[in-house]
């Protein structure tokens, strides 16, 4: 699929710039050009597709669907899938959280949504696809969905309503389904300019992190020997996975740049499960998100919430190391 891009990178670096494919510098620059273009193309494509899906997505209908039907556990899967397709911007998460609770959707299902929404997003999917290929990207999405379901289910069983902030508890007491539905009547042609502009804005906003990430990755790719990290980080060290998740939490703003670096870490010997656990920590748990959640949750609940998700992330890290 990207052969033409590799040919272009080869042509640019080896023919136009005249560097040898045998040198570290030539390899590193080739890797940089190829990866940057590939990731930007994927990113633009996927954010545009998600923008179209989002534009047509009937949020109100989904909420009513989730609150009315008894689905014997399937509602967790729906809530999680719903989390996957809602936008990168985490600021819609909290209004949606309240909207769900207000509509009478159980807390566990709402949590499932709240966990999956930031964890599996289109930007991360695009970069995973570009950096690791379809198999790992699929593992990432599936893990995110399963994590959301398990995390939400566990949190739902813990009876945490009393740890929500008082006004949210008030919202729960007055929960009711609403029937007022209205959807916009605009054609795809009318919607497209806005969607494309938004996709471009997302790409522009994170471009610098990606370029830095790939540059660092490229340098390491060219200069570090294969298996370099195996001596330091391997599957036998039990503490590597928890440490990776904890280290990932404060790194939120650089999620876009972290993935290309991690790609190289894996190529040089870091176990894939440990790497995925780290990236889940980077993408899924963030301090800005905790500040946003403060409005609806007490610190006790935020701690339980983060703790539960971190626990499942660590678990999936071990599982991948065991399976892969």
């Amino acid at each position: 699929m990207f052969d033409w891009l590799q040919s272009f990178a080869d042509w640019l670096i080896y023919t136009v710039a005249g560097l040898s494919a045998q040198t570290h510098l030539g390899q590193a620059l080739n890797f940089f050009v190829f990866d940057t273009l590939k990731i930007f193309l994927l990113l633009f494509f996927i954010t545009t597709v998600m923008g179209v899906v989002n534009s047509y997505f009937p949020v109100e209908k989904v909420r009513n669907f989730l609150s009315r039907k008894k689905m014997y556990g399937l509602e967790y899967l729906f809530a999680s899938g719903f989390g996957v397709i809602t936008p990168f911007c985490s600021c819609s998460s909290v209004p949606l959280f309240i909207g769900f609770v207000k509509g009478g959707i159980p807390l566990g299902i709402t949590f499932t949504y709240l966990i999956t929404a930031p964890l599996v997003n289109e930007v991360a999917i695009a970069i995973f696809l570009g950096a690791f290929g379809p198999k790992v990207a699929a593992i990432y999405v599936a893990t995110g969905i399963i994590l959301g379901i398990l995390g939400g289910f566990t949190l739902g069983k813990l009876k945490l309503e009393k740890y929500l902030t008082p006004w949210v508890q008030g919202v729960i007491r007055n929960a009711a389904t609403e029937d007022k539905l209205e959807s916009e009547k605009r054609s795809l042609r009318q919607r497209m300019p806005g969607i494309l502009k938004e996709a471009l804005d997302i790409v522009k906003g994170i471009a610098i992190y990606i370029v830095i990430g790939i540059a660092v990755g490229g340098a390491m790719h060219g200069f570090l020997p294969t298996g370099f990290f195996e001596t330091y980080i391997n599957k036998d060290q039990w503490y590597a996975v928890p440490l990776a998740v904890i280290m990932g939490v404060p790194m939120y703003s650089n999620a876009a740049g972290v993935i290309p670096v991690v790609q190289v870490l894996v190529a040089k010997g870091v176990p894939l499960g440990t790497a995925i656990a780290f990236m889940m920590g980077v993408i899924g748990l963030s301090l800005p998100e905790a500040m946003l959640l403060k409005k609806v949750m007490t610190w006790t609940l935020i701690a339980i919430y983060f703790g539960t998700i971190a626990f499942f992330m660590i678990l999936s890290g071990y599982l991948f190391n065991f399976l892969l």
Partner: protein
Amino acid sequence: MNIKVLGPGCPKCKTTYNNVLEALKQTGAEAQVEKIEDIEEMMKYNVLTTPVLMIDEVVRIKGRVADIKEIKELLTQ
């Protein structure tokens, strides 16, 4: 006229707010513009997706950035 922009302070909400100001400047319409960032306050209007553009207490655009041209049309209706 009373215009409200609802959103918890993300870039999209700021763009919408600035677009409103620009649209008002271009049309020369008089309006009181409010930016609501407090989630508790926001939920009184029953919104699920942000940003939301309200004109005279009616939700006109939600879940996406309203562009200047669009707002100008809504203003002159």
